[in-house]
């Protein structure tokens, strides 16, 4: 139902049930906001979005109040503007003021809002609160001094990710965002998915940057620096460099990475192919034996940590296959080191991921061999952008190049890992071959490509059906886990990606991307799959080669040692 309201003396038509903010937005009237965010419940905490409503004594928050018929609203009266300005000045009054050095310099909502509200002088000065910088987590850094307590991280952690690590603690001016018993992040229930970083309007949450380490290693002549890049990275960078959002710039990235100084550039999608081989074999075995079903995917480290933390009883169901990043790391330091005759201790292995949990994953004890990390350091997509800019590389003026052999060829199945459902699609293609000895007639499984958080699909393999469930974002995960625990789930395989949409919307991706960009990235992946000639992992010649030369066959003892890991019960809740 529609009705009219009056805004700034002009009559506009609005929909019943819309909040004032939404109604104004639809009519092209912008009201500044800070704590409000699409997809999260309104809390009315920041009060920046206040408007004046005739007949109401105080100012009204537009994010939380619903339009009523005949409302008369003033969005920019002097009283409103003064209130907004004062609120922002209050926020700035004890802000650290180190914008030039801040992680979010130039990309900060607080900064932008100050510009928008024309704040040019420090009218209110307050005593700065000293807070401890939390550097404990390899993935996420928390700087409470910069926190404006908008509560977005808390809401995303609770409402979207069902993790609830973060909550307000303390009272009054001592309020801060903290974890249970004020533990550091790495000792909390945090799964390092990085979604809090994506919603943080300031520099209070950001990734643990490793750029300096990487640069030092590149300039260290005694080290062989090897880089791998995740399938999602190549489709996520374009808009940052002024190209069409979602455009695949695989070749340009390889070229840029070489220019930065990496000796070898490998594509993680190759490791994804290996992961498919291992996971499909594992799944095939478990289906045949009927044990530990459904198999839970293990390529998302945030999800793995979630299971370890909250549902350790489901650990037997978790696939033991390592994530593609760690598979690549493992074979670089063993197989490749042998082939290229490099001492594995002299290899510095870097990986570029759309993810912050990967930073945590690479530091796990399970991900080492003989005390050496399989992957030495992980950079997020955002850090890659910075690295490219830092090295003065102009993407417009470089020629695309091919990734290095022997891990340069990938099937499009491996590439699909970047999107939710892609892992399953890749595994199903190979599983079909394993179970029936034939290729699927059409490798494309459209149901897995829908943009919903939970997808349940049955795939015919010969005469039998394999049921898969694909989840992205942990919003509804508790319900799903309950059905698994009760034994009511008929799924054989459950793929979970902690971030909604999968890795293309990961916690390490460039800021400011919304649904539109995520869709463009997914579309780009599916286009790659359409034109690719190798569409299944088991037809990747280099994958076959590595099995022939070293690993014997998928699921062999050697493969298990190198490509599989054991996951343990988390201790944060004890």
């Amino acid at each position: 139902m529609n009705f009219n309201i009056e805004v700034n003396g002009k009559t506009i038509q609005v929909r019943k049930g819309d909040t004032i903010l939404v109604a104004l937005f639809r009519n092209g009237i912008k009201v500044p906001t800070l704590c409000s965010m699409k997809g999260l419940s309104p809390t009315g905490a920041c009060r920046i979005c206040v408007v004046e409503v005739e007949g109401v004594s105080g100012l009204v928050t537009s994010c939380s109040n619903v339009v009523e018929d005949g409302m008369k609203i003033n969005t920019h009266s002097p009283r409103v503007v003064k209130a907004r300005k004062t609120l922002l000045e209050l926020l700035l009054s004890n802000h650290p003021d180190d914008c030039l050095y801040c992680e979010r310099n130039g990309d900060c909502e607080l900064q932008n809002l100050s510009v928008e509200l024309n704040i040019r002088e420090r009218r209110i000065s307050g005593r700065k609160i000293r807070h401890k910088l939390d550097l404990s987590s390899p993935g996420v850094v928390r700087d409470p001094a910069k926190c404006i307590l908008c509560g977005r991280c808390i809401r995303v952690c609770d409402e979207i990710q069902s993790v609830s690590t973060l909550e307000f603690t303390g009272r009054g001016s001592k309020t801060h965002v903290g974890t249970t018993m004020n533990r550091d992040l790495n000792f909390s229930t945090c799964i390092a998915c990085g979604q809090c970083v994506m919603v943080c309007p300031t520099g209070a949450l950001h990734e643990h940057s490793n750029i300096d380490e990487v640069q030092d290693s590149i300039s260290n002549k005694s080290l062989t620096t090897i880089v791998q890049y995740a399938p999602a990275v190549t489709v996520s960078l374009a808009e940052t460099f002024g190209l069409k959002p979602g455009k695949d710039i695989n070749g340009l990235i390889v070229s840029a990475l070489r220019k930065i100084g990496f000796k070898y550039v490998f594509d993680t999608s190759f490791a994804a192919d290996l992961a498919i081989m291992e996971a499909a074999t594992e799944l095939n075995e478990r289906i045949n034996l009927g044990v530990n079903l459904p198999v839970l995917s293990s390529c998302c480290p945030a999800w793995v940590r979630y299971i370890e933390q909250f549902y350790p009883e489901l650990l037997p169901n978790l696939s033991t296959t390592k994530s593609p990043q760690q598979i690549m790391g493992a074979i670089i330091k063993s197989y490749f080191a042998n082939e290229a005759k490099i001492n594995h201790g002299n290899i510095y292995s870097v990986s570029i991921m759309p993810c912050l949990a990967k930073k945590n994953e690479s530091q796990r004890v399970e991900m080492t061999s003989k005390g050496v990390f399989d992957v030495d350091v992980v950079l997020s997509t955002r850090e890659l952008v910075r690295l490219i800019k830092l090295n003065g590389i102009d993407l417009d003026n470089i020629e695309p190049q091919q990734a290095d052999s022997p891990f340069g060829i990938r099937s499009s199945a491996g590439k699909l890992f970047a999107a939710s459902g892609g892992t399953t699609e890749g595994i199903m293609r190979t599983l079909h071959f394993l179970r029936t000895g034939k290729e699927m007639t059409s490798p494309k499984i459209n149901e897995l490509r829908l943009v919903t958080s939970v997808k349940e699909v049955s795939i015919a393999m010969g005469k039998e059906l394999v049921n898969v469930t694909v989840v992205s974002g942990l919003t509804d995960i508790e319900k799903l886990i309950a059905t698994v625990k009760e034994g009511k789930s008929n799924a054989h395989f459950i793929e979970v990606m902690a971030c909604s949409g999968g890795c293309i919307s990961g916690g390490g991706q460039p800021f400011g991307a919304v649904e539109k960009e995520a869709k463009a990235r997914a579309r780009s992946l599916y286009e790659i799959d359409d034109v690719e000639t190798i569409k299944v992992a088991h037809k990747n010649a280099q994958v076959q080669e590595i099995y022939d030369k070293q690993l014997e066959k998928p699921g062999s003892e050697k493969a298990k040692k190198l490509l599989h890991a054991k996951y343990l019960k988390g201790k944060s809740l004890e």
Partner: protein
Amino acid sequence: MESGNTILNATSLVNRIRGVKETENLSDIDDYISRLKREKLTKTVVLVGVTTSSVAAGAIETKSAIENYIAERELDIDIVEVGSNGLCSFEPLMDVQIPGKSRIVFRNVKANDVPFILDGTLNNYLPPDNVVGQYRSQLHQPWMGIPFLDEIAFFKGQSRDILALSGIISPASIEEYIAFGGYSAFTMAISRLTLEDVCNTIEKSGLRGRGGGGFNTGQKWKMALAETANQKYFVCNADESDPGAFMHRLMMESNPHQIIEGIAIASYAIGASKAYLYTRNRYSITVQRLENAIQQAYNAGLLGHNILDSGFSLEIILRKGPGAYVCGEETALISSLEGKRGAPTLKPPFPTQKGLFGKPTVVNNVETIANIPLILRKGAENFALKGTEKSKGTKLFSVSGKVNITCLVEVPLGVSISTLVELAQGVPKGRKLKAIQMGGPSGGCTVPEKMNTPIDFETLKAEGLAMGSGGITVLDDTVCIIDTIKFFINFIQYESCGKCIPCREGSRRMYEILESITRRPVNDEGHNTLERFKGIILLESLAEVMRDTSLCGLGQTAPNPVLSALKSFREEFEEHIFDRKCAASVCRNLRTFYIDVDKCTGCSACAKKCPTNAIIGTPRSPYFVVEEKCIGCGVCETTCKFGAVFFK
């Protein structure tokens, strides 16, 4: 209590008020009732007021002294714990009732006064210093020469309805409460009145929420009643936490059953089968008495499943909050009850639509609830007789601060502020009344010239004051207004939930501004006069934004003390800013110390202790304070053995 073959207890009393014919002899029950009301006594009773405030004054020691006295002399005397009659400054209070004689009240009965007072009283001699007065009763012979309580100014000036039984009955006895007419309203309501009837009666009485907002209680109930839901909740807000307010605590400790009955009626009226009583863990005596009262009500069949065969079931759950000021705000209280962080949530939806666990919920405070049984018992018209046209009934006020008697009083709405000060017998001798702070930390200050302002919701609002829950702090000329509002703002900034910017940051900044006014310049730059002056201008603009934009009542009203002080005591601010003087010498950082040349022996002790080396001189001749260096810490004053250091 046994009589013949039957046991008389609360159930028999309940049957009696309901008119149910039971096997007990009616005259036995009436006899029992008169014994409970202490109309007929077979032996002497000593009643000691034991409440949070009297315990602080030594009531526990007094009680054990009485026990010892009785035990040593092997006397047949009962000891009963009662609540408080409101005379907090006179605590520990002890009442003695000898069979046939009127009950008499003694004040300030310390443990070692007990033998003397009891010796005298039991031998018909009353120590005059300790006597307050005697209760008036037709059934008992009065003491000669002792004033009746209702003749004493303190009680004469009041209109005690809610407090009628406070200090008289034992809070630990449901029987005594029933004997005095308790639970008759509830049993009548559930057996004879419909839900709408009860709501209508309350609405007609004009009772308005005593928590500060002043919303019509009956209307609030009707809003919840009109909602359809499979579960509704009633919540009694007993988390009293304004500094200087102790009405609810004393009330609950003195007569807990009145609250339980009120909750039961309110829950019936809105159709709630579950009620929560939210108090504070720290209020140990309150918690203990409420727990006991709830248990007794269950035992007497007044709570629980299918109460007295009426088909109405009610469960009352006592919740002990961790103690946060903001949890007095209803949505924050609801969050706290749900087990979440006590932070206010957005309105609408109002709790009456979507409250506790998403169900329609009515939140009323203790005093509002205490009125309910009385309104039902005496009728809405009777209630509306007292008070003004728009503010009906009586109101509790706790008067504290610089007054002769710290007390809890009940007066009809519409009386002047001065009445309250008079009831508390004014400021101490030789002092001058300076201001009255009303409505807790978010209330306002009023000046003596405005003392005739009638206390009702509308007038106070027009004056920029707030009734709040009824805490009144009287300030005399030894108090610095800026220091006082600094205390309140500090309280607010500490107790703010921290959710919204205006309240969290605004109150903190206000506190910092006030702090800078009440201290000497730390260095040459920072806190110069202009800065301090700008601070005051900022205070006003901050206050406006806080009021306009804060999420809940806490933040919206937080600037009130500052605004009202700026209005009434502007000179005092100016004096602090420009002259750097605090007339009341309260702001210790503004003091400047001087050394009396005649008294100083030149021992140099002060000079050695001075943290800023502001005291100079040569040994064995008088020392001097360099004013510019003095930070007013006062170490010299405490160091000097000759009393030579003084401040202006």
